[in-house]
């Protein structure tokens, strides 16, 4: 998956408009990034990337790029 595709998957999981997120977007500034969106990221990581995200890890992400890089790694 390209970073572009991961961004789109993330937008889908977080229920935000396509192409509304960039690698630089600060998560704190995304109105939709609430606890349900965080849970959605955990599920996306597990379902589509086979990665287990802990609660501690999810709290450490500060930009959208942090999530994308984690999923792509």
């Amino acid at each position, binding site marked *: 998956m390209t970073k572009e595709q991961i961004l789109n998957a993330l937008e*889908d*999981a977080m*229920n935000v408009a396509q192409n509304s997120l960039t690698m630089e977007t600060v998560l704190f500034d995304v109105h939709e990034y609430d*606890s*349900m969106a*965080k*849970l*959605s990221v*955990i*599920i*996306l990581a597990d*379902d589509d990337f086979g990665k*287990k*995200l*802990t*609660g*501690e890890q*999810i*709290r450490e992400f500060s930009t959208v790029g942090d999530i994308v890089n984690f999923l792509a790694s």
Partner: protein
Amino acid sequence: MMSEFKNKKIFITGASKGIGFALAKYLDGCGASLLLHASSDEGIKRLKEEFLSDEHKFWQADFFNPESFESKLSSILDDFGPLDGFVNCVGVRMRRPINLLNVGVIQQTMTANFVSYMELVKIITKRNRFNSGLSIISISSISAHAGGAAVSVYAASKGAIESANRCLAKELYKKNIRVNSIICGQVGTEAYNDLMASKENTTDPVLERQYMGLGIPKDVVNIITFMLSNQSKFINGQSIPADGGYLT
């Protein structure tokens, strides 16, 4: 009450962890004969390490595939003898917002938590499989009553059990079988610790409403054993809260 369980035959599913395990420990101490279920190899190993004796039997089964129950369980039950109690402690916790639900996940959760339970009740309530006074208890959840974000399917599966139990109670009382549910609040088990480690927030919002604090497995075991015992013989088809005040 302890002596009441001596030589009684109790079937516990989900016995290798949490509330099921604590219940098995207590009833073993009372001299009951136990048929203990676990889903995994490690679960069965843990049960055998803890409870290996001529009095107890073990059954490994995957609750995602209840079709296989009857053939495997029949001979074990024939060997074990008629049941005095059945406590279903299996519960697959599933947290998913609606946009990430899919048919497979929904069906699996309903199968493991509800369909498998119904199939087991069918099997154990056949003639010669139970003694008069059999008490059937299933563990439900506060989420079935209060709801919770991202647990729609889990809550529905528990609600389904409680609804079914109200019907089964009316259907089975003539055979002198009682059927009840325990509405469990948040209890500090291994599963709870796993849940908290995977949670996006550090505090548990449930405990804001569960004002008596996090329960311990024994808190729920005490209520289960009361419901198993003859002392609760006038209660049927009910959902009994063990919830630290959550629903009040």
